[in-house]
């Protein structure tokens, strides 16, 4: 335009235009291709997990593994809710599909390697996602939430319907191969399992992070914010919504498979509506709109429960109270955090980081 004199901007991010600021380490890191940046970050995280599990015992390994698969499930939900703006109360249904796929594969096809089971699970749960996503594509907000809620309620009931195949209310129990013989003595079985879960989780997260940092993620955020304007920019609104649903279903299924693999069981009681609601609550607590939110949410989901149980044990509480203590804890934490940091634990972490940076 002709007159550029009116730079009345009050933007915080306004930069002096004559002297471009030297790129910081963070800027350089963000300029790397996603194909380099995210796998590198995942490798670093994997190394950290290996280091961590080398000092924890079997219980600690299990908990670390649980954080892994919850993180994957919540990250999938993040893509759906935080990025594409579609609310699902049925994410646990896809974890159910993943867990039972894994259990059935291990029981009926014991020769198949773990990685192949994982791939089969992703394919199956994505297929389920296509079906559900296409059926619900025309539903908005509360209607979509209701439809997915029905799925979360209905699907686990299949186990009672087909007890021969799915083991009824007791579910399916199986044992998985632990660490390979060549690593015996170097790494314990639980360490191996936690590492396998985290390896799978991190691969899934690399894919999710790549998607959300690129064109597809931008398309999702655009239609979340304004469908009409996104459509006019050429974004296929309906198709993009279904794609988000399918990807999130795939992540949920893979997380369920990891859970079954880690625990050696798949039971209907693990996949009640409470699971779907907990995942949603953990996502909000962790922070909507950033993949970091999934990490904080998963840590909170696992460790609030652990601490709640430990506290109940220490106080020798009645089992009725003790069983409900973790969920009460979680609820209180959720409310407190959201009151102070609407963007959740991730929001808290970034405001603290800002403070530290400014303090220097």
């Amino acid at each position: 335009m002709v007159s550029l004199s009116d730079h009345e901007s009050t933007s915080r991010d306004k930069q002096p235009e004559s002297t471009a600021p030297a790129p910081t380490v963070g800027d350089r890191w963000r300029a790397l291709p996603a194909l380099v940046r995210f796998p590198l970050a995942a490798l670093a995280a994997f190394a950290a997990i290996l280091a961590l599990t080398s000092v924890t015992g079997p219980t600690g390994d299990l908990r670390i593994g649980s954080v892994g698969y919850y993180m994957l499930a919540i990250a999938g939900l993040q893509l759906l809710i935080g990025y594409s703006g579609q609310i699902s109360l049925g994410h646990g249904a896809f974890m159910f599909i993943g867990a039972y796929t894994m259990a059935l594969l291990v029981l009926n096809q014991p020769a198949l390697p773990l990685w192949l089971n994982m791939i089969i699970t992703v394919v199956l749960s994505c297929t389920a996602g296509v079906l559900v996503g296409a059926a619900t594509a025309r539903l908005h907000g509360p209607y979509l939430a209701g439809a997915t809620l029905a799925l979360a309620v209905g699907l686990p009931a299949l186990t009672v319907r087909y007890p021969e195949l799915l083991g009824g209310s007791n579910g399916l129990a199986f044992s998985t191969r632990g660490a390979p013989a060549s690593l015996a003595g170097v790494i314990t079985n639980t360490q191996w399992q936690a590492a396998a879960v985290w390896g799978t989780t991190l691969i899934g997260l690399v894919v999710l992070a790549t998607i959300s940092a690129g064109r597809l993620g931008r398309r999702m955020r655009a239609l979340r914010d304004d469908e009409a304007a996104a459509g006019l920019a050429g974004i296929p609104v309906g198709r993009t919504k279904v794609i988000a649903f399918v990807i999130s279903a795939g992540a949920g299924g893979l997380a369920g498979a990891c859970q079954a693999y880690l625990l050696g069981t798949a039971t209907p009681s693990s996949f009640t509506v409470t699971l779907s609601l907990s995942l949603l609550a953990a996502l909000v607590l962790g922070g909507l709109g950033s993949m970091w939110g999934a990490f904080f949410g998963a840590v909170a989901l696992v460790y609030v429960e652990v601490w709640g149980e430990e506290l109940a044990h220490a106080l020798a509480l009645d089992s009725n109270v003790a069983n409900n203590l973790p969920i009460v804890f979680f609820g209180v934490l959720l409310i407190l955090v959201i009151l102070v940091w609407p963007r959740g634990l991730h929001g808290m972490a970034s405001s603290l980081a800002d403070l530290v940076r400014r303090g220097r």
Partner: protein
Amino acid sequence: MTTTTPAPLLAAEGITVRFGGLTALEDVGLSVTPGSVVGLIGPNGAGKTTLFNAVSGVIRPQRGTVSWKGRVLRRHRPHHLADLGIARTLQGLNLFPGLSALDNVMVGADRLARGGPLAMLTGLGRYHSDERRLRERAMAALEEFGAAHAARAMPGTLPFGVQKRVALARAVVAEPELLLLDEPASGLSGEDMDALAAAIRSFRSRMGVLLVEHHMDLVMAVCDHIVVLNFGEVIATGPPERIQSDPAVAEAYLGDTEEVGADG
């Protein structure tokens, strides 16, 4: 516009739209040739936005056809426009509040990407070069409209005038052949308005423009041809000078309680 008219880019013919008992448009036609700026004016509620909606596939007219480069568009939807080479701004700002100004414009540039679905999903292939291309193009568009300084800011933190510039950048970044502007000047200060007029004139070399606007100074300054709507019917067409002196137009606006130039 009467002699040696080049083939029109966009031609709407006999468009009739009814909402229940209300006839929003009755047998309305207009055409836009490459490199021309056509103004579409009329009092509030005349049917201007409705005509935009019919042209862009948001609503289906009961009668009439919309053709693009001589081909009749049937069953087209808004998200097909970008690939046809048509861009449209909405009457509101309609920026994506959760995306930075730069990302907003990058969404508009989406169709310039060369990679396919596999690249989007895996980060392989054209993923990175597409990101770079879109970012460069978006940055250039922001610079063109004097909003480059706002690239990293969220729309909500920007002054209204700058937000309008970002919205304009988002609309033209993908180099459309036709730009539909719905009240681009509403809420702008005089200085911003001058800049907008200059921008619209500069579009002539690259694209045709169909402009809905209540600010008559702007309309008269930039349009080659004007179509006047009143109660869903075309009451006058012609070059700005003729429209300015047309008694039917004056009457339509005087009959309207709101003053020309004020807009809700």
